[in-house]
């Protein structure tokens, strides 16, 4: 895990700001098995991920496109449970801090009664640094926000293209770690280009002093370069990695390909940052390590 230096509020903020431009990678835990996930996460870490999101599968993933839905189905079919997930996290030794991405009901049901605290306490004990919940808007988030604060975890919020005005202020007032900027309306999934909504969202967010990372549709090094050039502090890539896992004949074949993909994305992000340094006029000042 990264050291939390005193100039940053958390491991996650340090991982993004300290490694600018940051690469954040996502895969679904248990796809196709927890053992494979361990090897994949280590490969992504070696490839240059600065932060790694691990999906804890839920049967009704309403925010996901087909790629991650299929990964979740494979993970559930393999019998992935919350406890197996936490044991995997305990087993992992990565440079990059780890986040869990899951749906609210999985968090509520972890203890014996519907309550967010047992999950958050277990997550902290297992060594996770933060939580992202795609079906938990700011309005419903206070119980989880409090539990995360009490246990030293960041709670990451998604900023959608439709998040504007007073709602944007309300969401940003609850953000910790980084703001997850949703590049386009719709669900997760690899796309061929960078959406125009990305630029609008980054412009709306420029007044907030929080790291911004862009996800939903990012699949190539060139996208990463464009997004960093547009002023983001990091890029988030998930479906493109799951495509690699899903298309491997043997689960172990994906390990090298994942490491190479992470390296390509990180290089792309660096390229974007260099363009910024060469041409500082029309873009916000980058955060340098």
């Amino acid at each position, binding site marked *: 895990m990264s050291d939390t230096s005193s100039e940053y509020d958390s491991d996650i903020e340090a991982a993004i700001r300290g490694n600018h431009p940051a690469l954040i990678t996502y895969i679904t835990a248990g796809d196709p098995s927890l053992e494979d996930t361990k090897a994949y996460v280590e490969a992504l870490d070696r490839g240059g991920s600065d932060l790694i999101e691990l999906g804890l599968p839920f049967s009704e993933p309403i*925010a996901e496109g087909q790629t991650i839905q299929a990964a979740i189905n494979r993970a559930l079919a393999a019998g992935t449970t919350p406890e197996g997930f936490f044991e995997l996290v305990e087993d992992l030794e990565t440079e990059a801090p780890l986040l869990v991405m899951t749906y609210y009901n999985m968090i509520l*049901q972890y203890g014996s009664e*519907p309550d967010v605290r047992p999950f958050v306490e277990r997550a902290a004990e297992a060594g996770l640094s933060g939580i992202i919940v795609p*079906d938990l808007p700011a309005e*419903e988030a206070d119980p989880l926000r409090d539990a995360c604060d009490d246990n030293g975890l960041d709670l990451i919020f998604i*900023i959608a293209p*439709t998040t504007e005005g007073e709602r944007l202020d309300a969401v940003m007032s609850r953000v910790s770690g980084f703001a997850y900027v949703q590049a386009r309306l*719709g669900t997760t999934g690899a796309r061929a280009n960078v959406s125009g909504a990305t630029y609008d969202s980054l412009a709306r967010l420029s007044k907030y002093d929080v790291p911004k990372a862009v996800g939903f549709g990012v699949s190539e090094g060139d996208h990463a370069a464009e997004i960093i050039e547009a002023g983001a502090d990091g890029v988030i890539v998930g479906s493109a990695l799951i495509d690699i896992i899903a298309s491997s004949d043997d689960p172990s074949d994906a390990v090298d390909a994942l490491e190479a993909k992470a390296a390509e994305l990180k290089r792309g992000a660096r390229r974007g940052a260099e363009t910024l340094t060469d041409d500082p006029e029309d873009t916000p000042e980058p955060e340098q390590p």
Partner: protein
Amino acid sequence: MSTERERDDEYESGGGTFGDYGGQYVPEALMPALQELEDAYERYVLENEDGFMDEFRDRMRDFGGRPTPLQRADRLSERYDREVYLKREDLLHGGAHKLNNALGQVLLAKYMGKERIIAETGAGQHGTATAMAAAHLDMPCEIYMGRTDVNRQRPNVYRMRMNGAEVNPVEAGSATLKEAINETMRDWATTVERTHYVIGSVVGPHPFPRMVRDFQAVIGEEIRDQIREKAGRLPDSVVACAGGGSNTMGTFHAFVPDEGVDLYAVEAGGSSLEIDEENGMAPNSATLSTGTDGVLHGAMTKLLQAGDGQIVESHSVSAGLDYAGVGPELSHLVDIGRVTPTNVDDDDALNGFHRLSRLEGIIPALESSHALGYLEEEHDELGDLVVVNVSGRGDKDLETVLEETEKRDLEAAPEIEVFDG
């Protein structure tokens, strides 16, 4: 409608919750659309701005056929030795109560300036109602329907297409209602700026549960007036089937403040009330009777779930009741003891179907047959004056009923062999 509404403030908070239930557990991208919808609901539905509710009532009369009759069931009254009345929602246009909500929401979408309608459907009743309403109001319409349901409900797929709707099969999971809702939410998260999502029941994020209830509440409001006229007083009990709960809440809402009227929500007991956690299956849809609290499809409510939070696959012989969740308001009314949750298994529902067909000349939907099955089992508990909501007609279920009856020894069934020859 508005006069009825003032009474329920005791348990209904302004923040979109009913006691501990309800809320807005949805992706961030949808939150502004829910706020826009809440605003439109308050202005047009609650305050009748631009005469919205007047237009809605006029169209429900001329296009939908409201009011539907409240009929004394002579032979059931004799059989059970008490006064039994049937609310005939099966006579509404489309053959079920579903049009009340579908027409209300499509009209609201039009007032809001939305350009496109999407909806999920299980067995196809909500899909066909939405397709009819969209055709009637000249709105483009797409319906998501699980592949399994598409294959077993062909006539409803054809009806939707006849009305000009596109039907999109959903292949995920068990490819039934739950997956269709997931996929419709994904479409909405992509197209939210121009599109309205017509949810088919009193489920989902605020303001859907109360808005759908308000469009359906006409059922109970009519019953209240009709029973006073026919029997001179309010009933001792009101019985309605419950899946997601839209006919249930529509029937009960006007009676919630009437403490002397007992309200029974009859769920699908399926073949057993146990949950098989290992395989993620519940052989029933008895959410109010057996479910636990959790979050599904945007709301905190009672659910059929495994201990670790995965939602299980529900089952019922009646596709319209086959859902792992239930409206948050019903969960609350059950918790505070105002609504009694009960259930009837597949066999008793089928007996209820046959009995009403033979004794009263009314072929009820398999959903409504659960309420009739309960009447048979527990009529002694229901008092001297009972109203049962016949939420829909059973033409759509004939094939299922023949098939399921053949497998069983049902006391109320006719000889099934003769149907083929």
